[in-house]
Every structure is written in C-alpha cells, then in structure tokens.
C-alpha cells in the first residue's frame, strides 16, 4: 500500500488540490480509505490528517471503514421508487444475503442506497464500484448476484448490464443540428472574439443550470477582471433528481461541449479548464478523456489552438457523491480538493473562483448552446423562444409517461404539449426542476416553459393519479436531509426536522398544529439558509401545501396532539433489560388530555 499511495500522490504532483481525486483512487483500490493511507498522505501533501478525514467524511462515495469488494448502490430517486425500487432492493439483499446499509460478513459485497444516479429514464438504476447499472429487474438482479457470488471481476461482466441508452426522443434546434468539430472556434476567430461575445449577448443565452444568469455577461465580467490567470469550469455535477440531459450531451455531443468551453477560454483568456463530472457518471470518464485526446491531436486543444495563439487545455475532475457540489462555489471548493461547502457570495466566482482567480462556471448545456450560437449566429438562436427566454431548453423527462427521455423544446412551450408528446395520461401533477423546483398540479398545464414562468434546470418528473403526494414529498425531503452539507444550522437541522415532520404527518401521527408547524419550519429554512440547497429544500412541502391544503388537513387526527414516534416502543429496551412488563412499564401513545 505504501508504494501505491506514494506513486499515486506523485502522479498528482503531491498537490493538495488533487486530494479528492487521490482519495477516489484509494477508495476504488481498497474499498475504503485506510488510516495508514491518511497518515501517509498527510505527510506527502503536507496537510493535517483532519483535513483528509474531513473530506472523506463529507463525500458519500468515500468511506473510513471497509465497503465490500463489490460495492452496490441503488438509486433512491422517486422515479426508481415508482418502478418498484424498494422491492427489488429487498430482493437483491436477500439474494446476496446482505442487509441494506451493511457489508456482508465475508467482506465480498456491500449494499446501500444512493441519491438519484441520473438514469431516471431507464431505472431502477444502481451502481457497482462506481459504474452505472440500468433497468434493474429480478432477472438482472439474479445475474448480478450470481456474478458477485462467483467473484467474477467487473471487467468480465456482460456489457448489457452497463448499457446506458441516450433516448433522445425529441431533438430541437440544437440537437438536430450539432456543429462540426472546430466549427465554433473557426467561426469565432473569423468573426473576431469580441464580435462573437457580442453575438452571444445578442442571442440572449442564459445559464441552463436553472438560475438563468446571462452567459455573455458572465463571460464579460470574468474578462474584465484585472488578473493574469482565469479558469473555465463546466458544471457536469448533474445531481438534481430527475435530470439526465447532461449525461446524454456528454455521451453523444461532448465535442460540442468542450468546444463551448474552449470558445469561452478564447474570449476570456483562460488557459485552463475543468470538466467537473459527477461521480455517478464514471462510465463516461474514459470516453471523455479519449475525446480530449482527439481534440489535442486535431489542434483544437492544447497549445496554439488552430494556430491562433490560443493555449488552453481541459482536465476532468470526478465528484464523489455530493449533490451540493452542483452549487458553483461548492463545486470550486471540491475542485480544490476540499469538502464541497458553499462559499459566501459575493464575491462571485467570476471575480474570485478557482484558487481565488476569475472563473466562469457554466452548465454543460450552456457551453453546448454557446458553440452552436458561435457557428449559426444570434438570429438563428432567437428565431425560437420568448422575449425573455431565447432559444430552446433540453428537458429530461421521466416518471409516468410512455416515452421517457430527452426532449428539446422552444421556450414558451406549454406543459400540456410536453405531456402530450411523451405520452403522459391521467396526470396528477408534474415536478418541474426537480425537488428544488416546483410541483405543479393538473390545473396548471397551460403554464409555459420559460424563465419568466416555469424556470427549470431540465428535470421534469411526471406523476399520474395513482401516485401519493406524500410519498413524493417524503422522498424529496429525505433527499435534502441527506444532501445538506451541514455547514449552516437552518439547513443542517432544519432539513432533518422537516423530514421528521413530514414523516409524522405521512404516517398518520399528525394533529391540529402539525401542518402549521410544518409550514413555519419550511419558511424558516427557506429564509435563513446559507445557500440554494437550504433555500429550496422546503419547496416540495411548500409547493404542495399551497396546492393541496386539504390533503394535508385530512391527514390530521382530530386530537390536540400525538407524538410522532412510538412512545411505548421507546421503552422496549429498558423493559427488556429490567425484565419488566407490569402496567407501569408501559405508556399510552396519547395522553388522556388529548
């Protein structure tokens, strides 16, 4: 191990900012981060060991205690649950003789849940040693269990288990007409870089991650900073449950995405770029490296790009299971090898980003669109969309519909059109923009896809009338409680309290004041949290409470109060230890005053 760690650290030039990448490789090799490795790394990277344990404890895919040699994770997205995820996980646990959340005694296999893995159109999904598994059913689970019990190396597993489909169901302006390699850069150099920035400004392109900041303005701010070093970062930490469009863009259109990053570098003067790829998309890593290699060969990356004197290269950094790293300042912290805790903003990354230098952070789809605009011009882009939302939006559609997949629509399209196209029937409601977005009811399907109406990062989850609102809200509040980074109290404590309070009402222990308490708690978390995660964590509760107040009220018992936990059950241990079962050794669930 000593030699392995030393070589690994050397490969990364003993740099502290490479810590997360180094730890990922140690985890992949040993299935945990051994104490010895931490000791040794602390010396090699000249950082305190607590810095290292802090990072290990922060990321879901890193562990201080051994996981199985086959580390199985099952996606816990609501879309997986809608396809019997719970039963299948139980079946898998039984087949492998391992409890969920545990490592089997022989150390061969461990099983656990993980947040949405971005396979919502082909779930239930999971991962084995970081590699995506799709379309899980009993047959596939039998095969997987058999492969594991036979200790078949992962490389020898049949490829169909790992097959990830792109399912582009409805291409639009951008997806119908991908650019030729190098076309955007050539067009930009021909037109002039300033004129190209002006073209992007004129196109009205806004960030596609959800927040919708004007792209040209961001690039101009970064360029305007009096600094010699700048960075371009592509945010491919697509963690919002229900989103998977970036996965498809990176699988089928990576050239165009990298070209958009290079274009941004040409305009801003950055020499280094990063693709921050979520750990769940490990299966794309080698392929993306190959494409970067091809681009270097073709003179589209590296030094003196297209002989225009532009020097720029791109590194790929892998995440390790942390939704919060989709927040741009947390992402930058993670790029620097730290725990992904959001920074105070301002200053924004465009002035103080990676290593404190001006940094443009844009979504995969934004870079993808920017390179198309550089080739085809602003007028081509603005021919569709609305006044405030130009162009198109790529949606990831999943849930109760006949044809889940990737759909590209002009802004201004109604939700009803979207539902018709994907074959959604008897719809109860749609979760727009994932758990952090808005739940809309079937009374609102004339609303439009647009920054000025329904803004979305691209997640569209459809629920039909057989679904229970509380199952949905419960799943989403659980997600936020799990993903809270723990930095600020309103979010760390609030999201857990929210989960408990939702569970209390969901399980039928709610009474008179409980919905009011839930709403008050939701508003507190929204108003006082440090970053977007906390500020949106109560949205599933608040947006459904607004639409279905009677549903919540009907859940309440007609008494003044009941505890949310089994009060008598809380005495079980003491009863057993004291070997008592007399009347005084029991408690009623509700007091006689209620």
């Amino acid at each position, binding site marked *: 191990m000593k030699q392995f760690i030393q070589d690994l650290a050397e490969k990364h030039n003993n740099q502290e900012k490479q810590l997360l990448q180094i730890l990922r490789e140690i985890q992949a090799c040993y299935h945990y981060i051994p104490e010895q490795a931490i000791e040794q790394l602390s010396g090699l990277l000249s950082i305190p060991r607590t810095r290292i344990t802090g990072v290990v404890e922060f990321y879901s895919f890193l562990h201080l205690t051994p996981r199985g040699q086959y580390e199985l994770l099952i996606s816990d997205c609501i879309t997986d649950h809608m396809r019997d995820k719970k039963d299948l996980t139980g079946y898998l646990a039984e087949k492998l003789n391992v409890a969920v959340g545990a490592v089997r005694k022989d150390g061969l296999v461990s099983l656990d849940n993980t947040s949405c893995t971005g396979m919502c159109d082909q779930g239930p999904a999971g991962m084995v040693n970081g590699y995506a598994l799709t379309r899980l059913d009993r047959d596939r689970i039998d095969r997987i269990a058999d492969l594991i019990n036979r200790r078949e190396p992962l490389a020898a597993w049949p490829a169909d288990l790992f097959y990830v489909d792109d399912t582009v169901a409805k291409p639009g302006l951008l997806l119908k007409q991908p650019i030729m390699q190098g076309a955007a850069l050539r067009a930009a150099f021909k037109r002039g870089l300033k004129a190209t920035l002006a073209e992007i400004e004129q196109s009205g392109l806004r960030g596609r991650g959800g927040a919708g900041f004007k792209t040209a303005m961001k690039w101009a701010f970064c360029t305007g900073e009096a600094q010699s070093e700048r960075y371009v970062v592509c945010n491919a930490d697509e963690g919002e449950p229900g989103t998977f469009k970036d996965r498809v863009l990176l699988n089928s259109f990576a050239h165009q995405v990298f070209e958009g990053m290079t274009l941004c570098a040409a305009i801003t003067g950055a020499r280094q770029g990063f693709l921050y790829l979520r750990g769940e998309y490990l299966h794309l890593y080698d392929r993306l490296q190959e494409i970067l290699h091809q681009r270097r060969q073709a003179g589209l990356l590296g030094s003196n790009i297209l002989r225009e004197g532009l020097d720029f290269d791109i590194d790929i950094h892998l995440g390790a299971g942390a939704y919060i790293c989709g927040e741009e300042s947390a992402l930058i912290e993670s790029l620097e090898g730290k725990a992904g805790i959001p920074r105070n903003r301002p200053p924004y990354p465009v002035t103080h980003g990676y290593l404190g230098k001006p940094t443009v952070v844009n979504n995969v789809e934004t870079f993808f669109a920017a390179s198309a605009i550089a080739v085809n011009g602003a007028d081509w882009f603005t021919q569709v969309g609305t006044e405030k939302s130009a162009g198109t939006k790529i949606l990831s559609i999943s849930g109760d519909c006949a044809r889940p997949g990737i759909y590209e629509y002009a802004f201004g399209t109604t939700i009803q059109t979207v539902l018709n196209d994907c074959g959604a029937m008897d719809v109860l409601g749609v979760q727009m923009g994932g758990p952090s977005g808005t739940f809309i009811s079937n009374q609102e399907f004339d609303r439009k896809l647009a920054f000025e109406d329904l803004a979305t990062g691209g997640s569209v989850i459809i629920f039909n009338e057989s679904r229970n609102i509380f199952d949905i809200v419960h799943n989403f509040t659980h997600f936020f409680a799990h993903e809270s980074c723990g930095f600020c109290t309103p979010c760390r404590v609030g999201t857990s309290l929210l989960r408990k309070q939702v569970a209390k009402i969901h399980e039928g222990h709610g009474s008179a004041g409980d919905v009011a308490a839930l709403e008050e708690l939701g508003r507190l978390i929204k108003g006082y949290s440090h970053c977007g995660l906390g500020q949106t964590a109560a949205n599933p509760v608040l947006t459904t409470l607004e639409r279905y107040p009677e549903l919540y009220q009907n859940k309440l018992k007609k008494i003044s109060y009941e505890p949310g*936990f089994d009060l008598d059950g809380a*005495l*079980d*241990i*003491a009863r057993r230890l*004291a070997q008592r079962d*007399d009347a005084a*050794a029991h*408690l009623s669930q509700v*007091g006689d005053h209620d």
Partner: protein
Amino acid sequence: MTDKVKVATVSLAGCFGCHMSLLDIDERIVQLADQVEFIRSPLTDIKRCTDCDIGLIEGGVCNSENVHTLREFRKHCRILVAVGACAINGGLPNYRNYVPLEECLGESYLDGIGVENPHIPNDPELPLLLDKVYPVHEVVKIDYFLPGCPPAADVFWKFLTDLLEGRDPALPYELIHYD
C-alpha cells in the same frame, strides 16, 4: 389570593438551573408574588399539578415518569412553556442519545469500575428510561419556548410580565442572542 394567576413549574431531565435563573429576578420576585401564585413547583414543594394558567417545563423527557408528569401539566395548564435548552432540544442529557441505552445501563450497573452486585435495577417503583431523551414538544403540545441555558432572569421576567399584562409575549433580540 384567588385572583392571582396560577403558575406551576417542574424540572424533568434538567439541572434546576432554569429554576435558579428564575430566582435571579431578585427583588422583582416580590412584585411577581403580588400577581402570581405558585402552585405545584419545587419552590413550594407541592407535588401534584392542579388547574392553572401557566406551566413552566424545565428539562427534556428521559423516562416514563417524565411523560406522566408532562401530560399532567398539559392537562392542567392553559399555557404550557418549554423552558431552556434541555426542554427545547434535550440539552446536555441528550448526549446519551449517541450511546445505545444498553451500553449506558451496562456501564452504570453491570460492567463499570467498582460495581458490586451487578444487575439492572428492576423495582416496579422505578420509572423506566426511554431509548432516548426527547424534547418536550415531541411528547405534548407546547405553546411557547424560552431559549437559553438557562434563559436569563430577564427572559422570565419579560415573558411573564407580557402574559400578566395581556400582551402577546415577545423576546427582544438582546435577550436571545448569546455571543
């Protein structure tokens, strides 16, 4: 005497520090005594709670007796108040929540240094411990919360005088910030 507002107080899984802090209102207690009558309270040594206006609960809920006492208070008090960190969050006693109850009792009564005649106490007179220490609002409905460890004497004073004078109780920022 009968016109006075009746107040009951109790310390569940607490340290009586909140009660001590209440006494820190010093000579104002004379003024308070003109308006309120303490019924069930460690200050009066009356053991049972009867109908009253305000119940002040110090401490969290750690055993079955705490549950019964708390319910008795809820039944008889018009306004029930969680007082201090332990009542609100479990406070110091809830540090045992990180250790399984088996281990807590094992260390105290079976395996600890100097334990003689090791056995888990099982007299029916003794209340059984809950698996965890719970905040009071997870067991009964609570109307108001007075934060602090303990809440400062002025917090008690402001809260009680607000109620006595018919105002909606409100604590100014100076009374609830701690740095």
